[in-house]
């Protein structure tokens, strides 16, 4: 067989990774993940290094002992997968999400008031985008019903509906929350649809009666908490008093009584709160959370509580240790609470290839106390970012502008990045706080994101080799 039988090619876009001694490839932009034979790995290495032709390739691989037939077949496979490109392969055309994309999730900000004054809060802190002046502080019944009606209409027959309650502090408007659960559940029933609810809270206002209600209605709960007492220094009341001692017993009760949905903790990492392992152990072992997720605070660069580069490196190292623990658990079929890994595995399993970093303004919308519609909870009450009002519906021109700017194709810096099928430039809100434009890629954390994505890919590769059944649970997500 001569070299001419090998189809001509050039390297496509992909990221090579290894896990427990095996080779894998992550394909960009498709999001496909394949395990590679040694020949396939060598060919991709070769293609990445050089633009030499197929004769060189054969000579090179024959040297290391591969047969021509194997090389030929492997090249064909790699071209079929898109890892290698045949000459003249056109770049992927830009695909916009369909017009009038149905709403999948509604966030209801029941109030913009909060009984805590966390120093780093995006709603009240130095970098706030909200302009709540002159607007109602609490949502009323009428607005909440109009919001639910709006959501049901905009979801266009979607069978499974999801409402998330948010604040301010969500539970400061618990009476309305109960009303909404009642109203929306009946409405869903009458239309033969399913609806479920979740909320985020700082846990200060939890009572046994509220917990019973949440458990009885299968309402998912995420608690904002930053770890053991000394890590919660920024989570304080107006008078500066800490919140940890108030919430600890309430969370204990919540975890004891509410078993119908997993209860999650959500940690905000700041300059002095980067001891990820200690926080994780406290929240899981001492407190009993089943899910713990971490996110660095969203802030402009110069704030005192912003996390510097070296601390982010330490965060990454600790994330990697937890990811390793996660892998060991997954191989044995056990649950692990580190939800940053779970979320990424789910996206990897499904092979997402995002046009936008998240559903904000697309499948997700938030409604604030005034009835204003925003892309997500973080933009509630912001005049600059409003996408309309529930009385008049979504302002399509504003929505188009928001989605156009946030589209991956507009983010030129991302076009050569292998992590873009997952990252797509990162959070619109963070981009606005950092760069003053929701469509700006979050270039301050690219190396971090790529390193972390590579870690999650290795976890994925190892699980798919040692316990693939574990990944099946992501099928439904």
């Amino acid at each position, binding site marked *: 067989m001569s070299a001419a039988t090998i189809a001509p090619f050039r390297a496509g876009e992909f990221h090579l990774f290894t896990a427990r001694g095996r080779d*894998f*490839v992550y*394909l960009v932009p*498709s*999001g*496909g*993940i*394949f*395990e*590679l*034979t040694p*020949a*396939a790995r060598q060919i991709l290495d070769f293609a990445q290094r050089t633009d030499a032709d197929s004769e060189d390739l054969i000579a090179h691989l024959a040297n290391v002992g591969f047969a021509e037939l*194997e090389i030929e*077949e*492997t090249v064909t*496979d*790699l071209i*079929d*997968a*898109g890892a290698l490109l045949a000459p003249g392969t056109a770049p992927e055309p830009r695909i916009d999400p369909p017009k009038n994309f149905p709403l999948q999730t509604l966030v209801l900000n029941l109030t913009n008031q909060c009984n805590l004054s966390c120093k780093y809060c995006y709603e009240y802190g130095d970098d706030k985008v909200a302009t709540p002046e002159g607007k109602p502080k609490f949502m009323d019944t009428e607005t909440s019903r109009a919001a639910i009606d709006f959501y049901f209409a905009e979801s266009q027959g979607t069978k499974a509906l999801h409402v998330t309650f948010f604040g301010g502090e969500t539970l400061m408007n618990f009476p309305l929350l109960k009303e909404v659960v009642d109203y929306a559940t009946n409405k869903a029933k009458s239309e033969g649809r399913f609806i479920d609810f979740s909320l985020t809270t700082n846990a200060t206002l939890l009572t046994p009666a509220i917990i019973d209600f949440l458990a009885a209605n299968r309402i998912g709960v995420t608690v904002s908490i930053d770890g053991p007492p000394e890590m919660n220094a920024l989570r304080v009341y107006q008078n500066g008093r800490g919140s940890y001692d108030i919430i600890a017993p309430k969370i204990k009760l919540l975890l004891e009584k509410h078993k119908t949905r997993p209860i999650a903790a959500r940690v905000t990492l700041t300059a002095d709160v980067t001891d990820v392992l200690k926080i994780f152990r406290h929240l899981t072992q001492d407190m009993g959370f089943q899910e713990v997720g971490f996110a660095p605070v969203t802030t402009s660069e110069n704030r005192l509580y912003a996390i510097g580069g070296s601390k982010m490196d330490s965060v990454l190292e600790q994330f990697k240790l937890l990811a390793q623990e996660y892998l060991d658990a997954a191989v044995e079929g056990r649950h692990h609470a580190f939800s940053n890994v779970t979320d990424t595995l789910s996206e*990897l*399993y*499904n*092979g997402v*290839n995002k046009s936008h970093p998240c559903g904000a303004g697309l499948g997700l919308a938030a409604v604030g106390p005034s009835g204003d519609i925003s892309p997500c909870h973080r933009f509630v009450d912001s005049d600059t970012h409003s996408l309309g009002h529930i009385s008049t519906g979504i302002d399509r021109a504003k929505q188009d502008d928001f989605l156009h700017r946030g589209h991956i194709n507009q983010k030129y810096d991302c076009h050569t990045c292998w992590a873009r099928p997952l990252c797509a430039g990162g959070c619109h809100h963070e981009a606005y706080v950092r760069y003053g434009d929701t469509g700006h890629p979050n270039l301050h954390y690219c190396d971090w994101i790529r390193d972390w994505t590579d870690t999650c890919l290795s976890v*994925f*590769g190892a699980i*798919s080799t040692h316990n693939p059944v574990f990944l099946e649970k992501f*099928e439904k997500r």
Partner: protein
Amino acid sequence: MKHLRPLNRKAHRIDQFAAAKQADVVGLQEKRVNPAKLPHIPAGCSIAFFPGWEVDSSGGVAGLCQPMERDLYDCFADCFWPAQVPDHMNNYSDWAKKCAAATQDWRNLDVVFP
């Protein structure tokens, strides 16, 4: 794909797409891609207009696919379709011995246990 193992949903779709490019519907194939790999003996309904569902093989309706077992019998007698009926070319040449007239004797067509 022999040299890549698909691991996620997207990879499986890529794999299926690639496989679909290679293979074709065997019975209707215009040219045999690789005769050595695909031993196929087209002797029945898919290669020629072969009655058996509308009219029987003699052009009448006496041997039509009734009862249901007649379908199987037709596959056996005139077609090579070993996935659904015992194959009469190699292993079960006697399968229909007791079935002289399908419309009357179809009850004698029994299952086989390979």
